[in-house]
């Protein structure tokens, strides 16, 4: 800030808002994001003014809500501010602002880190390093200064040989292609062609303007010092490197460029939708597709253009379309020659303003008119021509207009009455139509009524029929009913019969009731008997129960009680159960007690017995007793029994034994006795048990007695109940019997009364039904009579209506007939078509009026146009250079097609003038290396590549890169990226893009117009793989590509010839002494003969009137080898006189892009060296170029055996075999005189 002489506030208030480009710095984990703000030094005018154009860079740390400026620096004015890695924003610096807008922060967060993007590109572009390495190989050479002794010029001053140079060995070796400057002369004189250290000479190819100087002998310098410099080559490599750098720094006009170039599937954007284009040139379908595609593409379009397929036409059309769309186009190519060729063939059209940019001395004739100083003139010439053509045309036009005017008037006059007539006819027809439609509508209405009436008629008829039928059926029904009534008895008789039956029924019913009552009495009596029996039973039971109670009260033992319980079926209540269990328990304990007592007795007896036995032996019995008392053992009853048994056995079996051995048994007895005692001790004394048992027995008895008492009460109640029932029943029986007796008295009983009753009731029912039927029929007859009357009335009405409708219908039909008759004459009018005629006439009239109007306009404008243009022409004609100054400036300002070479497009002044192009078209792409292509590509928003990967790739000198690489590898010179380069060479950038792009972004122009179809056949295989192959666009090859020559070797019908050189020593190739280039003297000789023959043939063609007198056949003599070309040059210049031919010579490589009527190809290679092959001629692309230069006639001169048999690689052999076959098929094989054809 201090440097700028501004304080913070005044800096930030320089602009309302600053245009700033933000660059994001690499992030580290532990620190905040940091970024740099680059202040645009173009958009921010006031700032720029203040700080003299420097770029201000503010380095910031980005915090959550603010930026903290850490540092402010300035950079040079030319520093790039806008790059693809930076994001443009407009920033206002407001001290009052609270925080930085979120949008800005997220923009910074999401944007890429500039260094990372650069690194990415750097990594990818490293693959291209190899190209530069090759070019740099010899580039790093310091200027070489040497004295010289003299300069000698060649015949036409195109070359100078500098003699007497003094240099060291290394310097001599590095001279090739260096630029040459002679001290004391302005500018470079040319380029080193050849250095000869032995002779101390250097041969230099002179620049054009130096040739002039040489002729004037203005080459003398006092110092005689020459400087060889590699500046041009070095600066070229520098520019290529700079291209890499620009891509790395994100300076490509198309931000996707690096991805398009490097990714396997180039991420091209889908093309725009375009309205169909109006083409200025006549284009074939492929060309149309290419132009449309190129216009529609958003970033990249690739056009493959095989030889003669009209690439330039396509480029020209694209330039024109771009110009019309207001776009600026750069046309770039690898060489100046190609740029000038392309520009030279662009159409002269006022919408296209072509400007050729580059060093004037290196621009070819075709491009010269487009350089800045000449465009004024070019514009003048072009405008003058256009205006004069129009002016001349309009001169004739005046009379024409008059003529046309008269004719037009006459036609209008003729047309007028016809038109009127037609109008009347149309009017009449319209009226007729109106009347017709009126009548028609009446008819329609009437017909509708008819239809209605008919319908009504039908319904009425239906009605009548229905009524008739009804009346008829009613009549029948009435008759039938009357018969019935007549036959049936009258209703009174039935009534009487019925009443009689009713009386009988009454009697019957009484009898039945009597019977029923008697039955009831019987039943009652029976049930009374039952009740009596029951009563007796209950009394019995009561007696029994009393007995049981007494028995229970007197029971002494439990068994007795149990018996009573069973007997009396006494319920074993909870309490009874409990008491009985207790008695059982006591009984068990008392049993155990008696058992223990029994054991005690037994044991005591045994003890006393044993003691008695032992007593004489004075055994210590007390000790045994004590021990037994101390033991705590338990025994079961079985065990005690067993023990006692054992003892008994022992006593029995040992009457005489020593009783002392009984001592242990005594111990056992004691112990068992103690055990029994212990056990007995735990039981209560026997009397206690007895008392308890007695008590419980008393409880039990009471319980049972209580129960029995309860039962007794119950039985007594039911007995009383039975007695009561019995009495009631007896009473009921008495009353029933009384009733019955009464009934019997009132009527005698009838047997079978029930049956008879049923019969009688059925009879009554029948009679009732009959009565009913009779009534119904009578009723029906009444109803039917009424109905009949009504129907008859209806029938009469309907019949009347029917008559009316019929009359009505007849009336309607009549009207319709009349109306239809009225239509007949109208139909005639309507069938005519006056409108068509009228319309036709109207159209004619309109077109005549239009013509009249435009003629009127033209007539009016014509004098003005003529006078203005006349003046304009005179002004243009006398315009001097000065008068065109303004035009020249305007032209340059509005130039919309700029042409330059790839490398020149990276020159600083060019970049300054034209930083960006809307479209960049690169021609002959396959001939440029990727680094060269990158330079113009950097400048284009859209890039269109035109090339053909089946023609020659980039060349270094005369070698392809492969050949150079091979040579380098041979010299074991190694460098980084050699492997990558080898890979790249396998498939060129153009080829890769062409193959990987979607169909919408590429086209192959598949129709060629250059070659006779016979010549095309030779190269057809090279394009077989492409979708459409290569087709010939010439409608009649023989007529369009007639070379008009007739000679010994060449007939009119020949277009493809091969002059076979024998594979014999006399015809072998030779090598230059001390050089590596090859030549073939035999072929030279034969070509000389051939050329003479053709010159002669051309002369004859002129004589025969086939060719014009001043015409010359254009012949190209080309070869795979430079040395051969040199020798051909010399031969043609020195030894031949060919006034009827225009000859151009060159290597095949130099000829790429050119075309001639006739091409002679000297193939040179011919030897029998097993270790050698065919060198340059191996490359199919070189062969393709060689074969595709001729329009009318191609003659190969070389050994068929060498190329079709002796060639080492199979592919190469079959490639030449195909050519040979094509030649044979066209009868084009020629042999030298006296030589047998090979094969």
């Amino acid at each position, binding site marked *: 800030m201090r440097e700028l002489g501004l304080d913070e506030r005044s800096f930030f208030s320089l602009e309302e808002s600053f245009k700033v480009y933000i660059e994001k710095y690499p992030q580290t984990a532990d620190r905040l994001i940091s970024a740099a703000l680059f202040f645009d030094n173009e958009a921010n005018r006031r700032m720029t003014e203040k700080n003299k154009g420097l770029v201000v860079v503010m380095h910031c740390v980005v915090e959550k809500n603010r930026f903290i400026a850490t540092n402010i620096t300035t950079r040079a004015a030319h520093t790039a501010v806008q790059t693809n890695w930076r994001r443009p924003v407009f920033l206002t610096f407001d001290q009052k602002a609270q925080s930085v807008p979120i949008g800005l922060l997220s923009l910074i967060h999401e944007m890429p880190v500039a260094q990372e993007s650069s690194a990415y590109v750097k990594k990818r572009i490293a693959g291209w390093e190899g190209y530069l390495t090759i070019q740099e190989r010899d580039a790093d050479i310091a200027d070489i200064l040497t004295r010289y002794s003299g300069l000698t010029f060649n015949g036409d001053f195109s070359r100078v040989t500098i003699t007497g140079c003094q240099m060291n060995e290394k310097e001599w070796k590095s001279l090739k292609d260096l630029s040459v400057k002679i001290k004391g002369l302005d500018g470079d004189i040319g380029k080193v062609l050849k250095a000869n250290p032995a002779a101390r000479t250097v041969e230099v190819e002179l620049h054009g303007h130096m040739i002039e100087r040489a002729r004037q002998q203005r080459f003398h310098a006092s110092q005689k010092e020459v400087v060889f410099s590699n500046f041009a080559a070095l600066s070229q490599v520098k520019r290529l490197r700079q291209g890499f750098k620009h891509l790395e720094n994100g300076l490509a006009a198309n931000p996707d460029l690096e991805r398009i170039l490097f990714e396997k599937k180039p991420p091209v954007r889908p093309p725009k939708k375009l309205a169909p284009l109006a083409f200025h040139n006549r284009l074939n379908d492929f060309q149309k597709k290419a132009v449309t595609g190129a216009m529609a593409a958003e970033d990249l379009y690739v056009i493959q253009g095989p030889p003669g397929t009209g690439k330039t036409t396509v480029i020209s059309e694209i330039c024109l379309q771009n110009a019309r769309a207001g776009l600026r186009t750069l046309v770039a190519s690898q060489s100046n020659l190609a740029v000038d060729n392309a520009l030279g063939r662009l159409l002269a059209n006022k919408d296209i303003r072509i400007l050729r940019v580059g060093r004037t001395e290196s621009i070819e004739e075709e491009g010269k008119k487009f350089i800045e100083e000449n465009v004024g003139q070019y514009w003048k010439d072009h405008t003058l021509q256009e205006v004069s053509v129009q002016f001349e045309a309009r001169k004739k036009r005046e009379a024409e207009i008059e003529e046309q005017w008269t004719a037009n008037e006459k036609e209008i006059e003729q047309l007028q009455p016809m038109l009127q007539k037609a109008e009347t006819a149309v009017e009449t027809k319209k009226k007729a139509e109106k009347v017709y439609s009126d009548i028609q509508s009446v008819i329609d209405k009437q017909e509708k009524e008819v239809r209605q009436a008919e319908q009504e008629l039908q319904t009425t008829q239906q009605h009548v029929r229905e009524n008739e039928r009804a009346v008829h059926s009613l009549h029948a029904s009435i008759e039938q009913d009357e018969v019935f009534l007549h036959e049936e008895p009258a209703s009174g008789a039935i009534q009487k019969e019925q009443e009689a039956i009713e009386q009988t029924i009454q009697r019957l019913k009484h009898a039945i009731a009597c019977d029923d009552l008697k039955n009831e009495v019987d039943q009652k009596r029976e049930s009374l008997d039952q009740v009596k029996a029951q009563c007796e039973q209950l009394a019995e039971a009561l007696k029994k129960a009393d007995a049981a109670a007494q028995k229970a009260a007197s029971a002494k033992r439990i068994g007795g009680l149990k018996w009573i319980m069973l007997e009396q079926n006494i319920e074993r209540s909870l309490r009874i159960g409990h008491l009985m269990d207790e008695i059982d328990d006591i009984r068990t304990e008392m049993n155990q007690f008696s058992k223990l007592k029994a054991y005690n007795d037994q044991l005591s007896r045994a003890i006393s017995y044993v003691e008695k036995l032992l007593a004489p032996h004075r055994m210590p019995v007390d000790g045994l007793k004590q021990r037994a008392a101390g033991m705590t053992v338990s025994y079961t009853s079985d065990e005690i029994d067993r023990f006692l048994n054992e003892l008994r056995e022992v006593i029995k079996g040992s009457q005489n034994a020593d009783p002392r051995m009984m001592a242990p048994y005594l111990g056992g007895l004691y112990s068992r006795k103690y055990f029994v005692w212990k056990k007995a001790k735990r039981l209560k004394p026997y009397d206690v048990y007895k008392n308890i048992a007695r008590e419980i027995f008393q409880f039990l008895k009471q319980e049972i007695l209580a129960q029995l008492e309860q039962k007794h009460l119950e039985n007594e109640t039911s007995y009383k109940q039975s007695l009561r029932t019995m009495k009631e029943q007896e009473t009921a029986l008495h009353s029933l019997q009384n009733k019955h007796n009464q009934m019997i008295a009132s009527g005698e009983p009838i047997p079978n009364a029930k049956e008879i009753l049923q019969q009688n009731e059925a009879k009554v029912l029948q009679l009732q039904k009959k009565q009913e039927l009779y009534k119904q029929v009578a009723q029906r007859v009444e109803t039917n009579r009424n109905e009949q009357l009504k129907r008859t009335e209806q029938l009469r009405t309907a019949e009347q209506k029917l008559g009316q409708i019929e009359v009505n219908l007849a009336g309607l039909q009549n009207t319709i007939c009349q109306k239809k008759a009225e239509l007949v004459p109208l139909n005639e009018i309507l069938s005519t078509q006056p409108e068509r005629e009228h319309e036709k006439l109207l159209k004619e009239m309109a077109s005549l009026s239009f013509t009249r109007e435009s003629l009127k306009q033209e007539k009016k404008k014509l004098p003005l146009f003529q006078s203005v*243009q006349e003046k304009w022409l005179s002004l243009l004609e006398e315009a001097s250079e*000065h008068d065109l100054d303004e035009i020249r400036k305007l032209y340059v300002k509005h130039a919309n097609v700029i042409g330059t070479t790839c490398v020149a497009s990276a020159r600083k002044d060019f970049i300054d003038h034209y930083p960006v192009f809307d479209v960049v078209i690169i021609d002959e792409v396959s001939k440029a290396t990727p680094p060269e292509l990158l330079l113009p590509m950097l400048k284009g928003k859209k890039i269109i590549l035109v090339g053909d990967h089946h023609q020659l790739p980039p060349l270094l000198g005369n070698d392809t890169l492969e050949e150079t690489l091979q040579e380098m590898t041979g010299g074991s010179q190694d460098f980084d990226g050699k492997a990558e380069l080898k890979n790249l060479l396998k498939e060129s950038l153009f080829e890769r893009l062409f193959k990987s792009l979607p169909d919408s972004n590429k086209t192959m122009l598949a129709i060629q117009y250059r070659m006779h179809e016979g010549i095309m056949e030779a190269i057809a295989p090279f394009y077989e793989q492409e979708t459409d192959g290569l087709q010939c666009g010439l409608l009649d090859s023989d007529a369009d590509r007639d070379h008009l020559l007739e000679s010994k070797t060449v007939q009119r019908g020949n277009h493809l010839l091969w002059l076979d050189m024998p594979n014999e020593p006399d015809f072998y190739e030779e090598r230059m002494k001390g050089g590596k280039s090859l030549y073939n003297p035999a072929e030279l000789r034969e070509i000389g003969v051939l050329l003479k023959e053709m010159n002669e043939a051309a002369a004859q063609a002129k004589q025969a009137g086939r060719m014009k007198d001043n015409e010359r056949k254009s012949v190209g003599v080309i070869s795979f080898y430079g040395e051969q070309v040199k020798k051909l040059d010399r031969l043609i210049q020195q030894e031949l006189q060919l006034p009827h031919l225009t000859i151009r010579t060159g290597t095949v490589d130099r000829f790429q892009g050119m075309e001639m009527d006739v091409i002679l190809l000297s193939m040179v290679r011919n030897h029998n060296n097993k270790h050698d092959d065919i060198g340059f001629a191996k490359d199919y692309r070189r062969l393709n170029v060689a074969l595709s230069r001729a329009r009318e006639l191609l003659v190969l001169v070389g050994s068929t055996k060498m190329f079709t048999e002796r060639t080492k690689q199979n592919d190469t052999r079959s490639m030449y075999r195909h050519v040979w076959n094509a030649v044979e098929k066209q009868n084009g094989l020629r042999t030298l005189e006296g030589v047998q054809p090979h094969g």
Partner: protein
Amino acid sequence: MDKLEKRLRAGLLENAAVEIRHAAVWQLPVIGYDATFKRVKRLKMDILMKMLLLTFQQADIRRAASLSEMLLVEELFVADLIQKMQRTGLIRLEKEGYRLTAKGYEHLKRGIFEEEMKEEETELFYSPAHDAFWTEKVRGTEKERPLYRYARDRSADADQMLRALAEREEGVLRDGFQTVVAEITNFNEQLTEHVLCLEFQLYNKEQDLFYARVWNTALNRWDETLEQQIEEQERLEWRVEAEKLLSD
């Protein structure tokens, strides 16, 4: 003369491989003309601007496109110029179209105005062999020498003369004024001058090349037109002769 020849020979022989097979001196006829012509002095003025001003006087024009159609000039140029002229106050847009302002009239008047200059006389030289005018004064030789063997008999036309003269007289700009050759009022053929030429037939034995060198004393340079004419006619013969000589 001898000195010149010596110097040229020395120069040619600097190349050791070259031998001079034959040398000759002859004269090239050049026709002199006396011409009177007129020049005019006029203000340097862009022709398109002049044309626009003239057209605005003559017709009602509102749109650049109509002018573009009439003059067959890019609309952009016309629009640009119209803008410029409006800005500098030469024209203004009125109801019917553009009209010249007083300043515009003045400017056009000056641009059209041509100050006719006094008739001038000059000498011109035409070489039929070259079919070209030489505007420099040619000094013929006095001595009789053989004529150039391929001299052609043709004369110049006035148009060619005017172009040559205009090119020669293409005036420098002075205070925005230029002088332009407007017409040749009269011209008369004068004496034919004879320009001395030195011819060398050379052979480069290293490369087996025959070629010719002709020094034109009027132009003071090796003259490729003449060299080519000679080579075209004679080069084959030289070789035949040389081979004959060799075989003899």
